[in-house]
């Protein structure tokens, strides 16, 4: 995994609460067996009209949202389905961070495994940032994971929480599966002392 470095970006503003992963990428695009090609399907039903033409008023179809690396969304972002296609679609579109007041658990975990940083800020900071971007849609934010700070367009630095292990993985490009595989001895010892409650291979299946 690539190392996550500090960056400055425009912001795509989508201040809707409870944006679920069905909106981020509708289920009909989940028939793929690949991780690729999902960026064009991001927010598909909000982004395109019935004929498949981009809706000119949708934030991702106009500057600066179409070139932003940061998405500013409403509370409880990423609720609903566990589909990892949601962070895949967001990162393939070009996003590296999402700012909200809170994130759904599974989405947050999935995002961190795909170098998409969920930045949770207090409601008053969220409101301030919205106001600044309303006044100047070309305002930029700077995201610095190492210091866990988000610099608002007026330069105010806001600290945000990140799980320390996820932070290390992102900054150093550590791959979680590689980390897990290093614990082979502990896993094998656990298995020895904990017999399996069920053996899925024990019953002959018909058909």
């Amino acid at each position, binding site marked *: 995994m690539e190392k996550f470095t500090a960056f400055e970006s425009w912001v795509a503003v989508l201040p809707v609460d*409870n944006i679920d992963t069905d909106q981020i990428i509708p289920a009909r695009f989940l028939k793929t*067996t690949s991780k690729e090609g999902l960026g064009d399907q991001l927010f598909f039903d909000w982004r395109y009209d019935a004929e498949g033409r981009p809706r000119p008023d949708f934030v991702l179809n106009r500057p600066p949202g179409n070139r932003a690396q940061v998405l500013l969304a409403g509370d409880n972002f990423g609720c609903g389905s566990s589909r*990892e296609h949601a962070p895949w679609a967001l990162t393939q579109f070009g996003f590296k961070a999402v700012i909200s007041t809170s994130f759904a658990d599974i989405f947050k975990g999935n995002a961190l495994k795909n170098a998409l940083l969920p930045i949770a800020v207090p409601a008053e900071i969220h409101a301030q940032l919205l106001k600044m971007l309303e006044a100047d849609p070309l305002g930029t934010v700077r995201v610095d994971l190492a210091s866990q700070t988000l610099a608002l367009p007026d330069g105010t630095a806001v600290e945000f929480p990140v799980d320390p292990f996820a932070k290390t993985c992102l900054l150093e490009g550590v791959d979680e599966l590689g980390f897990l595989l290093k614990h082979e001895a502990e896993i094998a010892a656990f298995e020895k002392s904990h017999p399996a409650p*069920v053996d*899925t*291979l024990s*019953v002959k299946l018909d058909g």
Partner: protein
Amino acid sequence: MPQPRTIIQKIWDSHVVCQPEGAPALLYIDLHLVHEVTSPQAFEGLRQRGLRVRRPDRTFGTCDHSTPTTPRELPIVDPVARAQVEQFEKNCREFGISYFGFLNPRQGIVHVIGPEQGLTQPGMTIVCGDSHTATHGAFGALAFGIGTSQVEHVLATQCLLQAPSKSFAVRVDGSLRPGVSAKDIILALIAKIGVGGGTGCVFEYAGSAIRSLSMEERMTVCNMSIEAGARAGLIAPDDTTFEYLDGRPFAPKGEDWERAVARWRSLVTDEGAAYDKEVSIDASSLEPMITYGTNPGMGIPVTAPVPDPSEAPDAVERETRRKALAYMGLEAGNPLAGHPVNVVFIGSCTNSRMTDLRAAASVLKGRKVNPRVRVLVVPGSQSIKRQAEAEGLDRIFCEAGAEWREAGCSMCIAMNGDQLAPGEYAVSTSNRNFEGRQGKGGRTFLASPLTAAASAVTGVVTDPRTLIG
């Protein structure tokens, strides 16, 4: 005296492999369920790294999501879905995993077949690349949904890096009144605490109303824990649990069974154990519930008027509700009861089991569905389909004018050919009313099988108590 523990803590404690410095715990997974939609990229990841599935004997597969519910003698028409199902079966064979393929007589929805086959057992950790995995919590298992990266982690190591969740006690006491069901309990809970109310938490459902539910009804409750934002939801095992499991294909047998039951009984929460959060619901005051908006928290009694968005507590919530009503084409102040519907869907991992089908059949027996309404009845598994047919339920549905289909996720997720047309209204027994969830532009009212069946008869949203007398 050891510290009293909740069932959630007990299961967690007994599955921690190790606690590496500066990292989350390694949590051992007893059972990993895989399906065709969220696993292909994980299997591909294993191939790229040259890894095998560490414990095929703790892994089980079925196809359900993109699997059509048309007669099984027909091929899968959608080439993309067909390729996905074929890839899934190929992956299972290549990695030595037991699975119910498209044509297997026991195929079904992953959260239906786990319990049905006795794979789901108390005290287990269970994961699946699907957010409704909490369904298995009905058996006193710690069961939660994971993303595809984690599917790969579990396939390769049988472990997850995991931080413990907070515990949230949901107490439901009192007796449900006629016409009110398990689905109404969970819709009322989500309406009360909101779609983010359980974020960071695992629910333990307790109280006399929960104890008196059957296993199938408990699964309906646990299934929708994620719709309140909770990672998982579980119910301590009891005699109802053991009676359900006894004799199922993968359940322990003979002396193993006796030992297992003794172990399972020790899982219940200790007297005096503390929870991080608590909420109480009076079951006897509940009415049949229905959702009016675009998330499962927007639920009201079926007799109530649609709430006015301007009464919402804050500006963003007001805007969210206004947007929801605009999408749904509804006006505040009008009751949902009496609103025309185009489709009724009875199925999904929430409500596709025998209890649900019997409830729907009790309303439809001797009646006809309104000719304006398309009614789909989709059993959760092929085993359920056969059992329903043995009981004659299929004839009740077909004589009433409903479609009796093959097992699968069907119109809950609309990626298998079963879907709403833009603008159509559905009363649906599934779990999500998000925009476009049941088909682009489709509008969903979530409700119980009784409410869905009553609405099928009248062609409008209907309080089932008006038909069941």
